[in-house]
């Protein structure tokens, strides 16, 4: 039971962005994937979601290989993109119905109870019959969160979750992540907002030039990059930028 990325090399046609990337996430573990723009965070995520063709390597979730059994693999993953991606023709309620249908939630009553709890948490409960495509960006992002946590998969892949969310929604989101971790779920989250991410994840993986340089707590990362205790963690980005420029 884990996510295992082994020697992943990939990117877009003719362009290699990720090189021999290794990453393991154990059940009950939340990892923040950090790095500068262009470091390969989104590309890594797209590979995990099966949206890009790997050049080399394997991705396995709970023993299921993504390339060999994509349907089974995808049933165990929920994705929250940085920019909300909705079905324009569906109401909020129908987005939730579709989530139940695609993730095979058979206990419909229980699923709706959970859906109502989540909608209430993100103040969407009186908008079930609306088309979310007409919502503000923050509200749309909440729809994505509700759908993902309703699916209750083994792995959450979350891309820049804090963009556009109000502080209350951020707090609720962090609580949901903590709850998921307690239930032995796995979380992979890309972010630049380290202070808030620190509340949700136990470890960070630092991605630079397509490879993971270190996986560890913020303290371990500080020590790895020789940051002084008085230095802000954001100084890390300056160091990564320097490393990038030197290559």
């Amino acid at each position: 039971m884990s996510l295992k990325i082994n020697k992943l090399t990939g990117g877009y046609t003719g362009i290699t962005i990720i090189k021999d990337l290794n990453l393991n996430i154990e059940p009950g573990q939340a990892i923040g994937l950090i790095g500068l723009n262009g470091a390969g965070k989104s590309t890594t995520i797209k590979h995990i979601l099966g949206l890009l063709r790997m050049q080399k390597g394997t991705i396995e979730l709970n023993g299921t290989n993504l390339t060999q059994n994509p349907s089974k693999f995808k049933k165990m993953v929920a994705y929250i993109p940085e920019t909300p991606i909705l079905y324009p023709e569906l109401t909020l309620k129908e987005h939730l119905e579709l989530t139940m249908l695609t993730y095979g939630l058979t206990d419909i009553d229980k699923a709706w109870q959970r859906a109502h709890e989540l909608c209430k948490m993100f103040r969407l409960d009186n908008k079930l019959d609306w088309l979310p495509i007409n919502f503000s960006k923050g509200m749309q992002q909440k729809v994505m969160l509700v759908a993902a946590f309703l699916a209750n998969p083994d792995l959450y892949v979350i891309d820049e979750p804090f963009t556009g969310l109000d502080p209350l929604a951020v707090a609720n989101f962090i609580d949901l992540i903590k709850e998921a971790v307690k239930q032995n779920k796995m979380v992979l989250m890309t972010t630049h907002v380290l202070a808030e991410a620190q509340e949700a994840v136990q470890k960070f993986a630092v991605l630079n030039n397509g490879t993971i340089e270190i996986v560890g707590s913020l303290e371990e990362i500080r020590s790895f990059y020789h940051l002084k205790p008085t230095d802000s963690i954001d100084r890390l980005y300056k160091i990564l930028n320097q490393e990038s420029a030197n290559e």
Partner: protein
Amino acid sequence: MNRIVNKRLQSNQKKQLHYLTLVFNDFFILALIFMFGALMFWYAKNIKSWPNNLWFYKPLIALILATVMSVGHLATLFEKADIQFMLNQDDQMQAYLNPMIKHSMYLPTLLIILVAGILFPFALTRAGISNYAYWFVILGLILTKFTQLKLISQSFYFNEHNFYQAGWFFLVVLVILILCLIYLPYLYFIFALISAIGVNYLPCGRVFNWNYAVEYEERRRDIVDNFYSMFTDVQDKKVKIYRRKYLDFLLDKKNQTPNTFLYQRALLRDPEYSNLLIRMTLFSLLLTWVLQDYLWAGVFGGLVIFLTMYQLIPLGTVYEHNMMYHVQPISQAKRGQDLARVLQKGMLLQWLVISLGLIIFSPMKLYALLAIVVLLAFTFILLYLYLPVRIKQLFSKIRY
């Protein structure tokens, strides 16, 4: 600013030329010539038999001319990014808009002259308007169009009073035009001239209302794109989805798969597809009513069902560019079957409506029933033999 204006006008002209070439292809031009020729033949033949100076002639001419005058928006060619990049250019906006007003005058002027030319014999011989007076009125209408566009351009500023309201403007022009045509046609030209000069002296705000101006342009662009999309595919056309709750009773809620769940809703709520279904069905009903013949109505009904089905097949690719559709565990294997199921239901509904029309409008009810049965057999062959093959071809072109 001149460089931006010229660049935008040039690129817009290029785009319009591209789509106009596609719309007005050889066949369409030929059909237009025939239709226009037939209409003019009918007009020339019948105008002689119409009585002189009936009371409604002048109001009718006024209504037609005022309607033609109101066709055409102010093409500002604003883009959404202008809100950011031209935000500090408020004082330059008049210089930007003046060439746009000039550009926006071409089409309405052409239309006014064309319709005025067609109406001319009627106005002269039947409505009793004198030759010079009539053309002064037409000149006045062109000036009114300028006034309208100028008022629209002024409505893009934060004003204390907004002088342009589309509905009011049309009504005021119509009433004045009717009165002038009845009493003193030359007066309309004087009114139009004074308005066209006076509009430049109206109080106008100095702060540009960017949001409104950009929204106005987006609406205008939608109208133009919608027109082109009736004939050809329009790139970057924005589709506005409508909730249409009143159609929810048509949604099949049993035995749903994620694909049927999505396709059904796209068919009912995406105007690209729902309007096509409605438009074609109405067209068939209109033909049935005009033809009053079960045989021809049945033949055209079959043709309409075939054409509608053919044009609805691309519904299968509507989610192709939606990342979530590929990320979520939605089975791709039975996608074709799911699409066929949704289209079959939609097309059978169309058959039902066309059949009802056949029964209602055909004088020979028994033969109409026969036509309906034959039409149903044809629809079944289309939907259960031909459609699956076409869908298979569609999905075989998509690579994953």
